């Protein structure tokens, strides 16, 4: 079963090949590695969920996969790693199917590579879109409210809006939501999800160990560790 979930940004500035003399975002790499090290301490198995690149222009592996592998290597711990790629523009249904089918042995850590909007400020990679804040707030609320059963709210993220807002993590986060859902057949994103979540008594199985949120470059980065019991 999945015992831990770690969420990290898929920013290429975390990769060694893009390191300058000083880190572009001081502390981000250390934060990711620290959280991941803590989570995989007792894991024998790590499942990486990452999106394909939105604008792939090379034969290199997807950036999210490379970020995950780099972070995992930096933990200096031994475990089996399985990579699960989800198309960056996969439908919610496809994400849910993928999430439900994730194989998890005993003591599996799910490493989800994905971030929020890259359109949070005028200097952001995608320039400012005023809708970004609300969507990002919803993502953060769902993750930080995981103990209250809010992860399923990630399934409400609209693929088209997220594509417009350059939310690179939408599909992987929806795979996560389906994978850890206590409901064997989570509903499609719709009003009834909201209604159900609102009446939920919470998810006693899930503990939010940590959840750091930053946007130093106009992109929402979430570094989070959830523990499932």
């Amino acid at each position: 079963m999945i015992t831990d979930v770690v969420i990290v940004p898929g920013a290429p500035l975390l990769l060694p090949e893009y390191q300058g003399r000083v880190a572009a975002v001081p502390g981000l790499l250390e934060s990711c590695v620290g959280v991941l090290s803590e989570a995989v301490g007792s894991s024998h198995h790590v499942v990486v969920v990452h999106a394909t690149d939105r604008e792939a222009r090379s034969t290199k592996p997807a950036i999210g996969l490379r970020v995950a592998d780099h972070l995992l290597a930096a933990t200096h711990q031994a475990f089996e790693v399985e990579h699960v790629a989800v198309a960056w523009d996969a439908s919610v249904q496809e994400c849910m199917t993928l999430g439900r089918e994730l194989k998890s042995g005993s003591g599996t850590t799910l490493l989800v590579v994905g971030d929020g909007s890259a359109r949070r400020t005028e200097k952001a990679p995608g320039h400012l879109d005023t809708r970004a804040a609300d969507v990002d707030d919803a993502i953060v609320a769902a993750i930080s409210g995981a103990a209250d059963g809010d992860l399923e709210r990630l399934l409400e993220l609209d693929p088209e809006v997220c594509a417009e807002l350059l939310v690179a993590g939408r599909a992987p986060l929806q795979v996560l939501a389906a994978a850890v859902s206590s409901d064997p057949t989570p509903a499609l994103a719709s009003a009834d999800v909201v209604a159900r979540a609102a009446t939920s008594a919470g998810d006693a199985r899930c503990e939010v160990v940590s959840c750091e949120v930053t946007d130093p470059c106009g992109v929402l980065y979430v570094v989070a560790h959830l523990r499932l019991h």
Partner: protein
Amino acid sequence: MTGFTFRLGSRSFDERSRLVMAIVNRTPDSFYDKGATWREDAAFDRVREVVAQGADIVDIGGIKAAPGVEIGADEEKGRVVDFVAAVRAEHPDLLISVDTWRASVGRAVLEAGADILNDAWGGADPGLVEVAGEFDAAVVCTHTGGVTPRTRPHRIEYDDVVESVVESLVAQAGRAVSMGVARDRVVIDPAHDFGKNSWHSLEVTRRLDELVALGWPLLVSLSNKDFVGEALDLPVGERLTGTLAATAISAWHGAHIYRVHEVVETRQVLDMVSVITGDLPPARTARGLA
């Protein structure tokens, strides 16, 4: 690049290094600063400033290169020896070079704590390298075409100026080693403008890779010189941009040490070239990577 290391003082550098040597004149009449650091307190301030700006080496000189009032060895020592000792006391880790052709001055400044003897007049005093060897100091060998110290070139021609530079520098470097200077403490300098018209200095700059290929650390002294001024028809005081262009070309060719007046601008140019060549990572990169 031939893959070697060199030593200055207690520090070691590889062939990818690009070091800034800041000029500190203890003269009342040098061409560029016109005596700005003649007063001792001004000279100390200059050292502090260039250290703060990132200079790796200071090059202290007591006699201007151009013709002028004769300065004897005692007068030269009076200008630089105590100053070197005081700079050494205040900056224990700073690499200190002294620009002198006289062995007696060389001995005195090495006793006072200098690391490098910059023999800007091409071995005019053959005893200088012996002193360097005795103190395990570094020495800069320069090409002047054999002219007398403090004279300007007049109607000098070469069949091939770079060939003359190579021949002279290889001979001087070899002699320095034979006199006891450590192989990795010998620096070569084609000496732009010294024994050269501007055509010569420009050709040396253009073909600097041939000097880098010799496998000795290469110093270039380009700062605000006449070959820059004549290339652009600009007087002293308006030659920084041209100097920096020549600096960038020299850096691209692989020169290692840059003797300069303007430290900040030179450091930026050298770092930029080092980043372009891949010898140095960029300072910080987030563009397109967030």
